């Protein structure tokens, strides 16, 4: 197989190029924030901003998905969140959320 055949449209080679390119973009994101912060002085304000970041990222990712997912998604998330608050067990909480969604879909 020649190089040209390997990278022809629809080929495995082309898929590889796509995946490696996406992987590169991902690693760049993973490292550049850390690198950038080396050049920013840590003030109390910036510290508070960084503290607010984790929860903000999570909420921004999840809320639109849940709203789009409708009542089943809301129910499932509510079950998981309350169980997590009550027992503090991640596996239990996610499993219960999944079961709740499966049940709701089976019943309605």
């Amino acid at each position, binding site marked *: 197989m020649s190089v040209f055949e390997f990278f022809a449209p629809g080929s495995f080679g082309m898929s590889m190029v796509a995946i490696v*390119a996406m992987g590169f973009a991902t690693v760049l*994101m993973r490292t550049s924030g850390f690198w950038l912060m080396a050049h920013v002085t*840590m003030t109390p304000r910036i510290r508070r901003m960084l503290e*607010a970041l984790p929860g903000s*990222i999570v909420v*921004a990712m999840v*809320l639109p998905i849940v709203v789009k997912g409708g009542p089943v998604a809301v129910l499932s998330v509510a079950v998981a969140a309350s169980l997590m*608050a009550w027992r503090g067990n991640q596996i239990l909480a996610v499993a219960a959320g999944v079961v709740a*969604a499966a049940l709701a879909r089976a019943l309605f």
Partner: protein
Amino acid sequence: MVLPAMPVMALFAFAFGTFAVQKGLDLAVATLMSAIMFAGASQFVATEAWGNSQSLAGILTLVMFTAMVNLRFLLMSASMRPWLGSLHPWQSYPALAVLTEPGWLLGLRYRASGGADAAIVLGGGIAFWVIWIIGTQAGYFFGMFFSDPKRFGIDLVMPLFFIVVLVPLWRGPRRATPWAVAGIVALLAAEFIPGQWYIMAGAVAGCVTGGFIDERV
């Protein structure tokens, strides 16, 4: 510390595997995606748009989607600076290369409870990576036999996982104000801005809000 998150991570990878079958990806492509990208949300998006992968322009589109969805890693790695900043770059950057949400959130919690061993970020990241690949393949085989994973609620694993890691971060309503702002901005952005910008828009809005909420209670 990393162990409790393993099954959840495996389930998330499993969900990706079943999704990849549905969208007609090869097992090799799905596996390589998990091995090289190692970023669930962006893998879902790339799989959804995989039809683009066979031309250079299409690949550029995929890379842009990936960068958009994974922009949050930029913020996450920024928040690792106070912890990993004192290490030699040869130690900090490999750890960052395997940074994921569970690794990051668990790492922050570990540090908040007094832990300081940064090797846990790298070690945990590598362990997650292995689980991630195995889980993808398991999900792929499952998806070949069951055509409707939605019936089992597997499509909700990703949001459920994130909600569950959010709960222990709760420090009362005042400290959650940035979250509310992040949620509202993300919803609006998801509605009105095309593409995947809503994560970044919400996260930045929450982050800035956090900067303006001062320490007095």
